[in-house]
Structures are given as structure tokens and as C-alpha cells.
């Protein structure tokens, strides 16, 4: 009697089972399939990871300090931006609100930059939040230097 290679039906599941073992063991050691990412505060914001931003702030990260953001997160090259700039750039009002409620406080210069950044990365919700933050009139952005300006 001819033997059918039944492994054709089961091989993918067997491979998955071995991969599962690796995933579980490696996860316990901090690796595995798709482990948690290591990011700076601005990178957490740029990737819309409000929870990670909150965690980093709780651990002592300064929500007003500019930190590096890797290439392709916001633009094609690395930039150094404040968390609020990253939030406006990512057009994410939720993470922006989390930052503001966790101690981020933009001064007048930073506010101009944020509003002009919103002009280049338009988002109505972010704009409403920026308007509510300050009574100052919306700036003319021609002479405002934005982070990553040369690349835009």
C-alpha cells in the first residue's frame, strides 16, 4: 500500500507549534515574536503610544524636553522634537491631551511652533486643542522655523 505523506497536512501546524515554544520561552526572556518596543518619550508620542508616554513620564521623563525620534517615524530622517511637537506632527489629539494633563506646558515660542506645525500637519481636533491652550492669535508661520524644516 502506498503511504501518503500526511505531513503535508500537518507540517505548518508542527512548525507553528515549534515557533510557539520559541515565542513563549523568548517572551519570558524579553524577546520573542513582536516584543515591546524601546522608545524615547517623543518616539512613544510619535507612534501614538499614549500609554508608553504616560509610563515614561511616571518614571521621570520630562514632558517638555526634546528627545530624538528615529527616521521614518515622523519624517525620513532622525529629528529631535518635544513630545508635544511629536503629538501635533502625528496629528494625535488623544496623546496630546495625555501630555498636557501630565505636565507638558508649552511656552509662547513653543506654542508658535506647535501651531505652525499644525498648519503643515493639519488636524482639526489638534487645532482646537491648540486654540484652547492660549488666547494668543494664531501666528503667521512664514518666519517660524519648524523641527525638520529642511526635510519638508
Amino acid at each position, binding site marked *: 500500500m502506498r503511504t501518503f505523506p*500526511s505531513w503535508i497536512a*500537518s507540517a505548518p501546524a508542527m512548525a507553528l507549534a515549534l515557533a510557539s515554544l520559541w515565542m513563549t520561552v523568548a517572551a519570558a526572556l524579553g524577546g520573542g515574536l513582536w516584543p515591546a518596543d524601546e522608545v524615547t518619550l517623543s518616539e512613544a508620542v510619535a507612534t501614538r503610544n499614549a*500609554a508608553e508616554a504616560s509610563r515614561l513620564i511616571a518614571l521621570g521623563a520630562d514632558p517638555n524636553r526634546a528627545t530624538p525620534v528615529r527616521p521614518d517615524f515622523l519624517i525620513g530622517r532622525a529629528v529631535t522634537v518635544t513630545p508635544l511637537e511629536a503629538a501635533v506632527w502625528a496629528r494625535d489629539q488623544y496623546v496630546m491631551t495625555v501630555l498636557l494633563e501630565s505636565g507638558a506646558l508649552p511656552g509662547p515660542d513653543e506654542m508658535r511652533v506647535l501651531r505652525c506645525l499644525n498648519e503643515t500637519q493639519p488636524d482639526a481636533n489638534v487645532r482646537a486643542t491648540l486654540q484652547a491652550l492660549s488666547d494668543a492669535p494664531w501666528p503667521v508661520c512664514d518666519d517660524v522655523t519648524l523641527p525638520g524644516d529642511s526635510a519638508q
Partner: protein
Amino acid sequence: MRLSRLRRPRTAAYTLAALLALAFADSVFRIPVQVSDSLDVIVESAKAPSATRLFIEASGGSDSTLRPMRYIQARGLLAVANTTGLSYNAVFRGAHAAIIMLLLLAFVACVRIDGWLDVAALAFCLTVLTGLHTFGAVTREAFPVNHYAEVALVSMVAFAVARRRPRWTSQALVLLLLAWCLLLIESAVLIWVVIVMCAALRMPGIRWRTAVVATLMLVAYAGGRQALEITSPGIGSRGSGWGGVYYSGDDLRDRFSANPLPLFAYNTAGGLLTVLFSEPRFGVYELLRPDRAEGPSPVVPINISASALVTTALVVYVVMLLRRRREGLRPDDPSVIVGVVVIAVSAGLCLTYIKDEIVSTAGTFYALAAFAPIRAMLGRATGGPTRLALLIAAYFLVAAPLWAFRTVGTHFELRRTAYYSRNDWAGLLPPGRRESWPSDPIALAITSRLKSEALQRRTISPRFLPRWGDRYWVE
């Protein structure tokens, strides 16, 4: 365990399922306790002065659902956390992860493993179980423990008990679990369907008197609902799809309350098709979506093809089973018959709206029903004509990788769920706006602790996941 035992088919089958289950338990465990559907339940459970009072209050808390055990269960898990000193996340998410592990092991207990061809068929069917979108429904959400996963597990346990020699303790356990689940979620009626079907098919482990007691319990449950004036969710209680569009509950009510029959027929058919062909999802047929500018993403043809291959095998087996019905049932036939009935009844439960969770038990039985035709195909290929063997080989060369691919996709979706669930906590208890915090000290303490635990539970952001994953795995 001695290494030689691994060479036994049954041990190998359980080892295989356990390994697959391990990774799913890990992926499920990574998801923090959710804000939606979970936080309020946990807080209410903790605030009640006693479990009895909680049961009474939860029983009268809604005019369309009777789910007091949701709260009793949450209270029990809180007690475990407080007694053991474990984190809330560890206990609640651990319970969900354990249920998923048990579900996969119970699946193995439901099939006949006598030789290596059985193991091969089981391996394939395990990927059908874990790759089908309904498995996502039992792993992603929690309320705070996924009730649909509990119903699917108990249904599997009932079938596994039915396959074995009768024991009054096993049957009593099944009845006890039925009672528990009926007061947990309405889908538990499917457990009753399994019990009655097993008895009707004269499976050894479930006696007729067990089916009668189960039926009396169901009647008592229905009577209890009537006495408490609890109605079934009507049109508009939740949004659902129609064709290529998802409508809100209000929209559905406006369109169909005058003449609901077309919606009922559409949803029942959709409830069947979503299990058999992975479409529609929540009542929406992806191929009919009017807002689709880029054409269908690959996930749709992948899912439909994978499901169509298994459904075709299942349909052929059912036709052959009907043709040889006078010969009596073969050992694997009951899983097909019970599976088909569960899928049909489950479609009926989708009368007013469709969601993956409602059909999740049907999805589990779909994978179980697939075992018999898959095993039969492997058997026919061995010793059958060469042309047939080649055809079957081609079938598995396409179907097996497709289902394995879908299984990896379930992990992908679980990572995304972990991220979104964790992110929801960031907006709660804002440090700069204490006036928005709950005034109740118990609610504040629990929310604060759960938020802290969720934030400590680091997850990957979708930005770091493979970008093509969205197109190939997320619908």
C-alpha cells in the same frame, strides 16, 4: 515524561495542542484588563456588600440581559487577587489565558486519536480553530473574562464528556457548568444544544436523563427571564451590517423596525456564512463596501479561500454521510452532526445583529466538524488511486499553509489589541485634572491600581509591527 511516550499519537496530539496553546496564552495574557466592558464590572463587583446582594442586584440590572455571574465571577477573581497578593491583571488575564489553553486541550479530547493520520488531521484542524476569525473573538475582548470563550470551552467539555464512558460526576459537572454559563451569557444555550444532540446521537457519556435535566434548566432559565421581565435584544440594540455598510442601532431601527423579516433573514444567512466562509464580518461583506478605493485587501481572498476549502470538504462529507445514513454512524460522524447543528443554531442567535463573538462557539465546532472530513481525506489518500492522492496533496499544500498563516494573524491581532487596550488607560485619572477622578474610594482605588498595572504592561506599538500585516491579517 519519558521521551518514548511522545511517540504515542495521543501524547503527541496533546503536546502539539499544548505548544500552540502556550503561545496563545502568552498573547492573551499580554492584553491588559480593558477599560471598556471590564472596569465598571470589576468596580461594581467590589462595591457590593455581599455576593448574594451582588447576584440579586445584577439579576435585575438590565431589561434585555440576565448575566449576574459576570459580576460574581469578577468578585471571585478580585478575592483571589486580594488573597494571593497577585496583581489584578495577573488574575483576570491569567484566567482568560487559562481558559484559552483549556479550550485547545478540550478540542483534542473531542476527537478520536488512534494513529498518526489522526494526529495529522488534528494538527490541521487546530490551525482552523485558531486561525478562524471567531477565535479572535474569544481571545481579544474580555468582560472582564471572555464569556464567549467560557461557553466555547464548556461546549467542548460537554462533547468530550459525551465521547467517553458515562460517569455521573462528569454529567453533573456539565450540568453545573451549563447553569453557570446560562447566567453568564445568552449564547450558553449552545451548550444545551450540544448536550441534547449528544444524547440524541446516543453518545455514551451523556445519558437521556442528563439531557432532560439540561432542558428543564433551560426552561427554568427562560421562565426566570420572563418573571424578571427581561426581553431579548431587539432591532437597534446594537449596530450591524447590511450589504457593504455598517449601520448604527438607530439606523437599523429606522430601516427595519416596520418590516424586520429581511433583516432577520439577512442576519441568519450572514451568521451561517461568516462561519463557513469568513464573510461577512459583523454583517458587512467586505467585497461590497462602497468606500473601498484600493480594491479588496489580500486578507479577504485569503480568508475566503481558506474557509471555502474546509467548507467544501465538510459539505462533501455531510452529503456522503446522508447517503450512507442507513449504515449507522461512524466514530467521527457525531462531531460533524453536532457541529452542523451548532453552526445552524448559532446563526439563528444572530437574528437582530451579527458579531464575531456570537458565532465564536460555532467557529469552534466548525473546526471540530472539519476533523472527520480531513481525516477521511488523509485516509483516502493512503492506498487510494494516485490521481486522488495527488489531488488531496494539492489540497493540503494550499489549505494547510493558508490556515497556519491565519493563525499567525490571530497573534498579530492580539498584539494590536494589547496596544489599544493599554492606550485606553492613559486617558484615565489624568494627573492634572483630579476633579475628574471618581469620588468613590473603592472605584478610585481599583481604577488607580488597574491603570498602574496596565501601564507597566509594556506592549508593542503597531508602528513596530510589520506594515504588510494590516493588509494580510486585519479586516
